[in-house]
């Protein structure tokens, strides 16, 4: 269980998240929604310890994440697929995967499993990451995060700018992670995709909680979500 309890965080003097709380359970897909600039990416960075959390706590399975040195957070099993992929562009596909494998000293079996999921990456192991197509880059960003066998998987708009078949491939990975009992926290803008997958939705606005909806509430009244997002 990921529990975020009343956190305040921001960039230097600019506070972005204000008393934000959210929970994400194992074996479920929890979606984080909100308009552009609402603070979704900022929430992800706060979980990763990349921003100072000045109030509140973040815990994973009861153990505090907030307060840890940032590089310790992924070692507790948090895999991060950032918005815009953020690959190590000058490194090869294989080297990007190695960085992911080193995080928690995963073995070659993990590497095999991940490459099993993305056979296209296997054909391109020696290729520089910044020469991959957009879809392949997203595969690599996902594969890199899976390399640390995450207990908690953070995905920040993983389908941004992808064609349908690629979106489906990413969706399959997300479902697989859910079924294996991982905690999945997903930032997603496409309402239909959210309605189809989410077990729980947190809507935020201006860095504050706006509404929490579970799957039943979503199914009963999808228009609520649309109203919050202004579509």
């Amino acid at each position, binding site marked *: 269980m990921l529990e975020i309890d009343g956190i305040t965080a921001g960039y230097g003097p600019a506070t972005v998240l204000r008393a934000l709380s959210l929970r994400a359970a194992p074996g479920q897909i929890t979606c984080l929604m909100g308009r552009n600039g609402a603070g979704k990416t900022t929430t992800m960075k706060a979980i*990763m*310890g*990349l921003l100072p959390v000045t109030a509140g706590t973040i815990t994973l399975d009861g153990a505090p994440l907030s307060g840890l*040195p*940032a*590089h*310790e*957070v*992924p*070692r507790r099993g948090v895999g*991060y697929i*950032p918005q815009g992929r*953020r690959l*190590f*562009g*000058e*490194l090869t596909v294989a*080297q990007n995967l*190695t*960085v*992911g494998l*080193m*995080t*928690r000293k995963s073995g070659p079996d993990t590497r095999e499993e991940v490459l099993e999921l993305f056979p296209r990456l296997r054909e391109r192991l020696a290729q520089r990451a910044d020469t991959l197509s957009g879809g392949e880059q997203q595969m690599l960003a996902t594969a*890199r995060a899976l390399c*640390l066998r995450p207990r908690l998987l953070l995905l920040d708009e993983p389908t941004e700018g992808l064609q349908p078949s690629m979106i489906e491939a990413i969706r399959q990975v997300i479902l697989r992670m859910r079924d294996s009992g991982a905690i999945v926290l997903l930032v997603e803008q496409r309402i239909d995709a959210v309605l189809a997958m989410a077990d729980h939705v947190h809507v935020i606005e201006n860095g504050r909680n706006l509404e929490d909806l579970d799957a039943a509430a979503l199914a009963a009244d999808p228009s609520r979500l649309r109203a919050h997002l202004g579509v």
Partner: protein
Amino acid sequence: MDFGPYLMLAMLEGAVMAAVLALTASGLSLVFGVMRVVNVAHGEFYMLGAVVAWFVAQHVGGGPAIGFVAALILAPLLVGGLAALADMTILKRIDYDPERTIVATIGLLYVIQQVALMTYGPNAQPVEPPFNQRIALPWLEWGDGGLAIYFPWGLSTTSYKLFVIIAAVAVILAVWLLMSRSKAGLIMRATQLDGEMATAFGIPVERVYAAVFGIGAGLAALAGVLIVPIQQAHYLMGGDALLLSFIVVIIGGLGSLPGTIVAAVLIGMSDGIISVFFSPTLAKIIATLLVALVLVFRPQGLFGARAR
């Protein structure tokens, strides 16, 4: 002596210079490449290497060879450790901000220089080379019976100078292998490319920075140790080393190791040759002019990547 042998002699001197310069500059280039900061105190680490070599040679008994080997190991370790400490206590505090790092390392430069003056003193002091056989070099000449080999008077080098060249090549090769083949190199390159993402994958970026700063200073110190048996140690010797390293790193392309090596050979060799045939001042003038030309026509340097 004819022109040919004379040129060969100048080129040998230039090669020694290039070797030492390549070592010093690759340290500066490594630090800039990974940390994106300019270390103005880099030349002082070179000077410290030479001065520590003198101290070690004074205090370790058992002949010049043992003293020199001890210096070769101790000086880079001591100086690298000192630099890592400076990184953790100073550069980390100012968040590796590029401008403030320049000012901070200028301060470091003066502190190191003054401490060296107060402890080591104002005199230049020699360190005895571990070995120093004169090696006469052959030259070819058309004689009555066709091509003949002879040994012109004055055309010689020493075994120590050859050793400096070989040692520099070996160390640079090791650095290149470390960066391109090892896990440590992968960690450094990931940190260089995207520090935030490196952190998000468990890389302790601040420790990587301290290590890189230490390795960079260690390389300069190693160059300092290698040069003392030829040039003597002096507390102001860091100035020229810094200037030439900057020239090399700018011409080669900031942060590019191959570029640094090529530029060091170019500058070292031309410095050697021009100094022998004309004057050392002219050599510096030409090198500086070359920097100006590179900055105008190819600001990213010969091997540097364009700003992304």
